[in-house]
């Protein structure tokens, strides 16, 4: 067997990459992709624990998360298109209308 903590570390690493991506990347589509990465990292975490505890709940929760991620990606892309129509840019640094 693969020790569970290997899965958890993988999940953590992926999550951290996702967080850093959200925080630092300029292209909003890439930020969306980073958000997906964070969600998937959480999925790995859930499945890892489900396997360890021999419970099915974790896997069921992971299915929900995938569904949720899909809906969120659809809406997110719709937002980006609307944003692009108004601001002519997909550069997160240039979307600062609420700046002081």
């Amino acid at each position: 067997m693969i020790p569970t903590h290997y899965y958890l570390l993988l999940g953590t690493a992926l999550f951290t990459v996702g967080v850093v991506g959200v925080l630092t990347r300029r292209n909003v589509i890439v930020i969306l992709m980073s958000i997906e990465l964070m969600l998937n990292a959480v999925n790995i975490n859930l499945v890892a624990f489900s396997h360890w505890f021999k419970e099915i709940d974790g896997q069921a929760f992971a299915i929900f998360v995938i569904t949720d991620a899909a809906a969120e990606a659809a809406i997110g892309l719709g937002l980006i298109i609307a944003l692009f129509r108004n601001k002519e840019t997909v550069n997160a640094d240039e979307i600062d209308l609420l700046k002081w």
Partner: protein
Amino acid sequence: MLFLDYIWLIPLLPALGAAIQFFWGRKLSNQAVSLVSVGLPGISFLWALGCFFQLLRLDGTAFTKVMYTWLPAGAFRLTDGTLGNLTADVGFQLDALSAVMMLVVTGIGFLIHIYSIGYMGHEGGYYRFFGYMNLFMFSMLVLVLADNYLMMFVGWEGVGLCSYLLIGFYFHRKSASDAGKKAFIVNRIGDAGFLLGVMLMVVTFGSVNFLQVSEAARSGRFAVGDGVITAICILLFIGATGKSAQIPLYTWLPDAMEGPTPVSALIHAATMVTAGVYMVARSNALFVLSPAAMGLVAGIGAATAIWAASIGLVQNDIKRVLAYSTVSQLGYMFLACGVGAFGAGIFHLMTHAFFKALLFLGSGSVIHALSGEQDMRKMGALWSKIPTTAKTMLVATLAISGAPLLSGFFSKDEILWQSFASPYGSKLLWVVGVVTAGLTAFYMFRLFFMTFAGKSRVPHEVEHHVHESPRSMTIPLVCLAVGAVAAGWIGWPKALGGSNHFEHFLEPIFENPALRESAHHAWSLEFGLMAFSVLVAAAGFYLAYRWYVQRPEAPERVAAAAGPAYQILLNKYYVDELYDALFVNRAKDVGNLAAAFDMAVVDGGVNGVGWSTRMTAEISRLWDLWVIDGLVNVLAFTVKVLSYPVRVIQTGLVQTYALLIVLGVLIFMGYYLIHF
């Protein structure tokens, strides 16, 4: 006693005339004005005659009539501790003395009013002139008919006022209005003395009534030479020097010639200036108690007589000569009173009124004939051109010089005799009197010859218009001339065989045992002195004849030879300049000081308050600008500065907000990890 019961009509009728002129005079024609303002004094004169004859029937007692009590002053303490009760009434007292004055004032006043119709006929302000003249008659009659000192003072002040109004009648001329002011102010200085005398009288006698004061003075309560009585007499005399133009308060009278000639005749010759003499004569009971005061009166009278006569010797304005002559003759009257011959002083007052009024009216006629010329150097040879004026002036000149048997001779010689022989008199006073008589004869005939005789020095344009005056002017001249001749005959002295009715008539007023003794003395001495004074007058006449008829170039030579003496006399001994330097300019200095104070301190204060108000407003503005607004701005600045860090957080970038969320989570997790 019809006339005496209505004696109050005598002053009231002229007052009515004055009132009519003041209210409606402007709308009346000259004829209406003349009818009212000459007619009413005329009726006054007739009434006065009636009162006089009824008084004679009273045989020596005085007639008194109180109209009402003016000042019921109530009880107060006199200086000697007794209780006094002063009541000053509006009342009339007609006795021999006031009867003489009343007749002189109304009679000569009436003649002068008639003269003024002709003289002032072409002048502007005709009604105003007669209004003032009537007001003057009213005041003068109040003065002479009063029964107490306070009512007399009312009249005294009234004549002073009318003198001011009439001297300054041509008020457009600065010299005339200045002269009016000078007269009133110098008069007022005398009046201060008069009032002080009356006040002292009130606390000493407890009364101001003539009869009561005279009775108290003669009662023996006061010793001869009593200090308080002397003080009262000197103070009253100071008032007389002001009113009657004696040294030192005579300077107003020559300047008063700025007024119209009838004014000079009435006020400054016949009536107002004699008020001082009348007052001293009225107070004779007080004066005889004080030899010091008598000496002062006689001394000043004599000194003034010779001083003024010397100035009159060289004056060139015809009215100025007459003015100084008036001052000099008034000096004679005071000399008489000062040596105890009050009757002689009043006698001279009466004769002087005739011939001096005649001289002034005559000079007015001359001035009128010469179209306004008053300088005698531009006259001459007028005898044939204005004969009536010339002849009446000759009569008056003879009278004033003391030509025998004319009025002036009797009155002046009475005075000279009394100053020689009276117990109060002295040889020195007599000498001064005689010298002055000589000077008088000289300057009066100088006036006469320069005006009427010799060669004509009248400029050509004026010479064409020379004409005799109208009848309204010449008739009074003739009437006065008759008086100037005959008025002295009622005082024909015993030394020349007469019975001196005038002295007897006035005797009850002037009862003084000391004087009665000296009356019965050597007629031969009196006759000798009389002859001597006639000689002196004749010498004066002869010198004037030589210098102004026979050798007209002589006066200039003498004047050049005399040099500085002539200049001093011509400039009136520089007395006016002295008074200016000592008093007038000092008074002006006080005025200037007060004005400077007013400008600097009072106005400065007001300006300062305005300035400080503006200053306060300025400070308020600056405070508002820098402090109040400053605080507000500082507050805003602080908020801005303090809020800067907070503001900066609002980057508007979603990623920044996401970073903050992550940091927050990490902090929470870290806290829990450490504590658990």
